[in-house]
């Protein structure tokens, strides 16, 4: 004896087939989506890696990021309080400088006319966006490192990164932090001075380098100081 009528069985069969088609479609869509996601992820990763390497292997970066950071020499270390105080005084100078700039007549800060863009707007914006992604990633990674290790190396790496990115204020901030972890090291001072110089504050850059040389010896610092002093007539 049948449990269902023939017609019922036919209907159930049709339903089963429909369910199978829906299930297969669902699986197919899932597979396609997975493939697309994987491809997109792979392509994005590839482009990011490519851009990252393009970024770090540029001539500017080679000088800073690729170089292994020298470990601080204990013989050069001084009491942290001495150098921090000096750096603080430098920050004070920096602040007064900023205030002075603020008081400059407005016309000096404003461009007199708006120039047309030479490159395609979309292209440039896209490029900037892509670059930003890498920068954010680097910055994020390095900041994560710093929050993890809280050490000289990661603070210095951040200072170098910001200097390369021409974010001089941040480079100054991180170089000061780095110098707190290793007061004897010359590299934070060099970045500080270079950043100040890049901000058209050569006077403060020279002052900082001299302050460092009062307590330490460093060929690099001396060389940089000489270079700045020779060209002192140019930038302020």
């Amino acid at each position, binding site marked *: 004896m*049948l*449990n*269902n009528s*023939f017609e019922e069985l*036919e209907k*159930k*069969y049709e339903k*089963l087939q429909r*369910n199978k088609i829906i299930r297969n479609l669902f699986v197919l869509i899932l597979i396609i989506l997975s493939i697309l996601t994987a491809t997109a992820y792979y392509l994005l990763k590839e482009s990011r890696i490519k851009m990252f390497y393009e970024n770090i292997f540029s001539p500017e970066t080679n000088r800073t990021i690729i170089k292994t950071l020298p470990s601080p020499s204990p013989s050069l270390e001084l009491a942290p309080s001495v150098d921090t105080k000096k750096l603080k005084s430098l920050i004070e100078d920096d602040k007064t400088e900023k205030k002075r700039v603020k008081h400059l007549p407005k016309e000096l800060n404003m461009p007199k006319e708006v120039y047309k863009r030479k490159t395609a707007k979309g292209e440039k914006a896209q490029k900037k966006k892509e670059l930003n992604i890498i920068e954010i990633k680097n910055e994020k990674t390095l900041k994560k490192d710093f929050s993890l290790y809280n050490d000289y190396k990661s603070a210095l790496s951040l200072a170098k990164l910001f200097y390369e990115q021409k974010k001089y204020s941040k480079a100054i901030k991180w170089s000061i932090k780095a110098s707190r972890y290793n007061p004897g090291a010359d590299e934070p001072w060099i970045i500080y001075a270079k950043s100040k110089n890049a901000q058209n504050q050569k006077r403060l850059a020279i002052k900082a380098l001299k302050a460092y040389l009062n307590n330490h010896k460093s060929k690099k610092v001396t060389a940089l100081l000489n270079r700045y002093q020779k060209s002192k007539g140019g930038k302020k």
Partner: protein
Amino acid sequence: MNEFDKAQTIFYDRIDTNDYFDSFSAESAKRKLFEVLNSEDIHLTFLIGDSGVGKTFMLSFIKEKLKKRKNIIFFKDPLFTKEEFFKTLIYKRGEVNENANIHYGELKQKVLKLYQNVDNAIFIDEAQLLTEEQLEMIRILSDTKVFRFVLSMHHKERKKVLKSEYFKNRTHINITLEHLADSEVQRYIQNKLLNNSLGEISSLFESHHFEMISKLTKRNFRMIKRFMSTLFELLSYAKDNNLKQYHQINKKILTMTAIDIGLINVK
């Protein structure tokens, strides 16, 4: 009555010892059972297999084959008391127990005396249902070396009986009955149809149909019989109602069969 109706009836689930199918597993189990029943040393044997694999059929078949040489008592289930068990054994020897209030101990002595020199075997099906008391009784009787017991039970519940204190340290033999092999499903169906002069129906099947039946029924003997019986009922209906698309065996009618007997669940 068309030929599909006839095909339907030959696959009804009933025990006919003439329907013995010589699958590899059945042949192996049969040979071992014959050996055990002819042995003087083995008094306890377990026939183990999944539900629907053909354990009951095998015991019936063995009983039928040995009925002239051995006194075989077959209990289809263990739903009996000790007294009922002994009274059955006495009755099977052609004696009637006149005293209704006879004590268990006396019944036992009487049974042992009756079967002392009789080549016998007691088959108990569904042995997983045996109670502790019954297990104890079987242990005592098998220890007397007067009786040979063959207990058949489901594969899943074998542990309960085999690991019980009564049998753990007793010499016993386990014989396992397996499902049919894939190729045996086709041979079984075709043999059955051809033996019943239904060669024309047998020729309707192609190898992929057998593969599908094998997969759906999981090669379970009882399920194959049920499947075939239902399939032929559907084909018979289709023929009577002149539904031309079902004049041949196809995936649709096989799936409909599986749906009807619950092998495929449609939500």
